């Protein structure tokens, strides 16, 4: 639209504030973090150069792997639930009837309330002695004594947290899918009806392929978000039992704050960031191939 040397400068002027902001408040701290990762530093004692020591330590650190594998497990379980559940909800609510629109609105409400608040809410719901879930299960006769949902068994805690995050986040995927499904031209769907396609055939053969882009986007966002999960674990289990539910970012937090091992925390962050970058690149490459 705007061409020429002068317009280029004008464009850079519009871009400049954001770039400067990012340089000062993201790149600079990032640089400092990289610097920190080569040192041992506890804030109250002077930093000590250790070169790649922190990185080597991470590879040999049992807890690092426990955290990483747990984070992968969490991601692997919750992502399909969010994608499939979100897509089904989208199919359910895509019509423009009042009830469907109401459902869509309601499903989206948990999305806007904030992960910390949601985690606190579910922490209460799942509380062994004080929460309504156990009470309801006992009243319904499904269990005979309170289930210790959080902090005692890693897999059970994982499932409870996944339930709470699903409740909170599913609406986001749903809305994006609704947008994508509504963008599918109606004559294509109608044509398939004429050809005698059943509902599910229509969904899988026509709608799904045409909305694949949104599915891949939601998957990507979900995966990155899950790999970076922290709040829900900090609030609901504090990493218990025995740090088995401490995600990668939770372990980074532990090192950066209570343990005051800033260098190590910085190194762990960089390793995680690079891991996520690798995941993302792989996912984008797969996407491009499926589109080509």
């Amino acid at each position, binding site marked *: 639209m705007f061409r020429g040397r002068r317009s280029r400068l004008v464009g850079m002027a519009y871009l400049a504030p954001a770039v400067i902001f990012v340089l000062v408040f993201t790149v*600079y701290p990032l*640089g400092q973090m990289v610097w920190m990762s080569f040192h041992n530093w506890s804030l109250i004692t002077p930093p000590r150069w250790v070169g790649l020591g922190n990185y080597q330590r991470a590879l040999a650190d049992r807890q690092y792997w426990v955290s990483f594998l747990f984070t992968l497990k969490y991601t692997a379980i919750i992502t399909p639930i969010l994608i499939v559940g979100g897509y089904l909800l989208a199919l359910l609510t895509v019509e423009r009837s009042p009830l469907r629109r109401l459902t869509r609105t309601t499903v989206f409400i948990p999305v806007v309330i904030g992960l910390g608040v949601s985690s606190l809410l579910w922490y209460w719901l799942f509380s062994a002695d004080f929460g309504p879930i156990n009470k309801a299960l006992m009243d319904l006769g499904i269990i005979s004594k309170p289930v*210790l949902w959080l902090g005692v068994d890693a897999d059970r805690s994982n499932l409870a947290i996944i339930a709470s995050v699903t409740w909170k986040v599913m609406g986001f995927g749903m809305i994006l899918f609704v947008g994508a499904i509504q963008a599918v031209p109606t004559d294509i769907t109608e044509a398939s009806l004429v050809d005698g396609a059943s509902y599910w055939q229509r969904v899988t053969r026509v709608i799904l392929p045409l909305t694949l882009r949104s599915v891949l986007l939601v998957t990507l966002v979900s995966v990155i978000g899950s790999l970076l999960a922290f709040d829900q674990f900090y609030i609901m289990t*504090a990493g218990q039992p025995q740090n088995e539910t401490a995600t990668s970012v939770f372990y980074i937090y532990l090192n950066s704050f209570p343990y005051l091992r800033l260098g190590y925390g910085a190194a762990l962050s960089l390793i995680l960031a690079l891991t996520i970058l690798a995941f993302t690149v792989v996912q984008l490459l797969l996407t491009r191939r499926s589109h080509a």
Partner: protein
Amino acid sequence: MEVHGMRSRLRWLVLVAAAIVLLAACSQGSDTPSTTAQAPAATTSCASTGELTMWERSGGNKQMVDMLVAAWNEKNPNCKIKLTYIPHTEMVGKIAQGIASGEVPDLMGMDLIYAPQFEDAQQLVDLTDRIGSWPEIKTASKGHMTVATFENRVYGVPLYADVSALFYNKDLFKRAGLDPDKPPTSLPELREYADKITALGGGIKGYYLPGNCAGCNIFTVGPLMWASGAKIEAAGPGDEPLVGDGVKQVLQFTRDMVKSGNVPEGARSENGETFHLQFGSGKVGMMGTGNFNITLARQQNPKMDFGIALLPGMAPSSAASFIGGDLVVVPKGSKRVDDAVNFMKFLLSDEVQVEVYAKALNLTTRTDMVDNKYFQAEPLVQDVAKALEVGRTPYTLTFFEQINSPQGPWLKMLQRAYYSDDNLDTVIADAKAAMKTIANQ
């Protein structure tokens, strides 16, 4: 390419800038000491005017601290203390950040077991010249003063004291046919009594073990080990933790307690947030808990008749207690050291000891003030104050990581002992190794 060149130059610039900033930040650490040889004599009023900022950790005895600050503010309206509560899990990090950035409060309350770590790092103001010769220091809680001292220099005084003791439900004792005036004096006896109480049924259990709370356990199970002659923490690099048969004996005792059904099942998920409500429920026969539980239990369950004994060890008439609570210290860089010291004098003054601490049925932080009119009217408080005599406070530079951390080796060892069948020697050896690694950092 042009873009690459610019970016790598930029990164270099950033790193250089970062290095400069950090060098500057680190060199800020060497402050001139604010204690001078001519420090004014301490009083219990203002040394200078203007608000004092004070940090205190949450999750402690908030009521007590609020009362003390209110008492000071009433007496000294010209130098009122503005108190901010910091979430206790973040306190250590926050203090470190504050010191590193120079934004420290004028004084602060700190969980006493973290004091050695900060003293070692030279982040607290050395107050020996100002308070070392006070007579009150000699009778102040020895657990507190031990951790407030580093290499013979004194850095703070007690803010409030908690001790752990064995609370027992006299009503349940009577129902189980036990003498309500004869609490158990050894762990085997405790087990015997617990069995009898659990046999009453109806959701009643003889004992309580918090399954997910590191701090609760060092507070109430640690003394069982001490009373059995064992040592728990590694004080510093090269020190040996978990020494003595007492460790294994107590772990065996607790494992047996859980296995025999003497502990409520819900206790397994107790992470400290509802620990203070357990004894007052009236469903627990005996429980290690703290002096704070006296008023709490009374509020929760006014009709319950209960008594207090000392936490026993394996051998008869052995006892120990954990002296916990908070210290008042002055962070390096504080601009109101004189006022902070006056606040300390205020806390240790006779009047405050009796009219604020004792009146609220909290422990006096001076052992020579235990005999006062409020305590005399309250035999339970007198009983619990006895724990001060057999009590101690762990001394280590890495308390949080070794012991208090929910992810640390102490809690892990206990959880394996309570709830699994892992060989206890292995369990102890694993914890020992982990604690040593932490201490050696």
